[in-house]
């Protein structure tokens, strides 16, 4: 009688471990395959005899996509410019608005209406906006500029930042602001000098989420910046319609998009999880 529970406990532990290992394998194997393929010699892609691991590793695909005559470097720079500008603007704008909504006493529940408006933006099809936004940018002669993509990305992420930070600013102890207020300190300085320094983790969470969204965003970027201000995700989608698929360079280009983000995610995991959780569950 003594043996049974321990045996089943061991069996269960084993089953649990196997299940977790399987989940990890399914989640991570595609990344490994992508990275290995980006180092695989071209002639191996269509051969039946090639194994999972390339026969020898080569950097030819990276050399090819980063060839000085090519445009990849420009796409990388475009993506970096657009992501960093969008992140800074979205967090600054969003933090200001969230603080205002948390402190303002507007009539007719106006604060709530604006708050809900920001939430609604998360839920409608972006394709509805993409077409008229394309026309709008055409009218302003902003097609294929960084600015067109940045404005689009800020407008997509600001609502999320507001929604996320609103919770933090509402919970922020007002006593901390009160004494400064008695000295005659207005909301601008209270916000910058007192509130912001104490809510940096929340700001970081908002920034991390915004950066991911902007770096990965495809629809808006592809509709207003197809040729010049092209971002990396838009470039990747081009590999499919090109005549035949160049597996090697496609893998290399995808790795350029995926690997930095994956590493960044591992280091900012705490903020990412917190941001997603607050953003989703608070509603």
């Amino acid at each position, binding site marked *: 009688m003594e043996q049974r529970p321990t045996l089943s406990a061991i069996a269960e532990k084993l089953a649990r471990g196997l299940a977790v290992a399987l989940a990890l394998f399914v989640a991570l194997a595609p990344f490994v395959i992508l990275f290995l393929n980006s180092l695989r010699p071209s002639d191996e892609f269509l051969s039946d005899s090639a194994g999972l691991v390339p026969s020898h590793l080569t950097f030819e695909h990276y050399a090819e996509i980063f060839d000085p005559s090519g445009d990849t470097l420009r796409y990388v720079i475009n993506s970096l410019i657009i992501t960093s500008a969008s992140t800074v603007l979205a967090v600054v704008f969003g933090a200001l608005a969230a603080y205002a909504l948390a402190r303002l006493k507007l009539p007719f529940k106006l604060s709530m209406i604006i708050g809900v408006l920001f939430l609604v933006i998360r839920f409608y099809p972006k394709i509805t906006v993409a077409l008229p936004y394309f026309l709008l940018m055409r009218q302003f002669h902003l097609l294929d500029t960084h600015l067109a993509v940045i404005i689009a990305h800020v407008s997509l992420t600001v609502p999320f930042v507001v929604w996320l930070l609103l919770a933090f600013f509402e919970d922020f102890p007002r006593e901390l602001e009160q004494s400064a207020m008695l000295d005659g300190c207005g909301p601008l300085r209270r916000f910058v000098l007192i509130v912001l320094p104490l809510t940096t983790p929340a700001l970081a969470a908002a920034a991390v989420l915004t950066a991911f969204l902007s770096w990965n965003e495809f629809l808006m970027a592809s509709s207003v910046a197809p040729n010049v201000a092209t971002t990396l995700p838009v470039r990747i989608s081009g590999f499919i319609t090109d005549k035949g698929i160049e597996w090697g360079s*496609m893998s290399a280009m995808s790795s350029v998009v995926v690997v930095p983000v994956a590493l960044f995610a591992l280091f900012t995991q705490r903020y990412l999880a917190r941001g997603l959780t607050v953003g989703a569950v608070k509603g």
Partner: protein
Amino acid sequence: MERPSYGRSGWLGQFEARVGETGILLLFLVPSLVVVGFAQLYPLASSAYISFFDWTLSRSPVIGPFVGGANYARTFSDPVFAGSLLYTIAFALISTALQLVFGLAIALLTLGERLTLRLTRTLIMLPMVIAPVAVGTIWRMILSGRVGPLNRALAAIGIDGPDWLGNPNWARISLILIDAWEWTPFAVIILTAALTSLPSDVLRAASVDGAGRWKTLRYIVLPMILPVIMLVAMFRLIDGLLTLDIVFTTTAGGPGYATHTLSFWIYQQGLRYFNMSYAAAASWVLLLACVVVAAVFLVWRRRIMAWQVATRS
């Protein structure tokens, strides 16, 4: 170090005194409202407007005559629209169901603060942080017919794998599985947070060995986290209805129209064929569908939460 001044002196203090408390807070709202109004609300309204006119951008740079609901009527008599609508709904439902089942299972399996468990949760998050178009290229590679690694692995154990992305039905299934792969981590993160916030005696009861565990899970833990599960379901159902990116890099809607999601079809109509008014009408049909889904979920969730409060006391 000089202490920052909180008083009314200085140009900042005078500025704040002149504009006043409410005035400054209202100014804080301006940048966000301007950007959102310019790049979201105005285009949204303008798309509603365009949807009642006849306009093909490739034929005319200016908007054509008013046609009433003709564009909307056209969407419902268009077999490709109907097909994509049907596929999109099936896609969202099946993918969301898979995400919830696997997400809950993984969240339960990796619950705890041990280093290995925390590390597992971190690593399992990766599929959702990378660009959806890259998710598409990765899986296109893995699923590619004869030489893809998946079919090779299947061949090694004696199974002749299907042409995942070339056969219409398998392509439809593949896209759903890819979406579930990408977004299950979202369910894991949110459900882990929900489970962690449960009272510790509930969790302990749920981790005790034996027959009581399933009952605890089924009758205590699940009902307690039901509002969160529904929230995840709502987010994922709506995002599922809007799926676009992965279609571009896996099947590009094919073979034929087999894997046209509604967003992809609208994208083709609008930004490829420049049927502005038709695409706008179709996108409003999609938008209204999303509104209905969100409303149903929020009302349902409110009922459940009210019921929880009522039964707890």
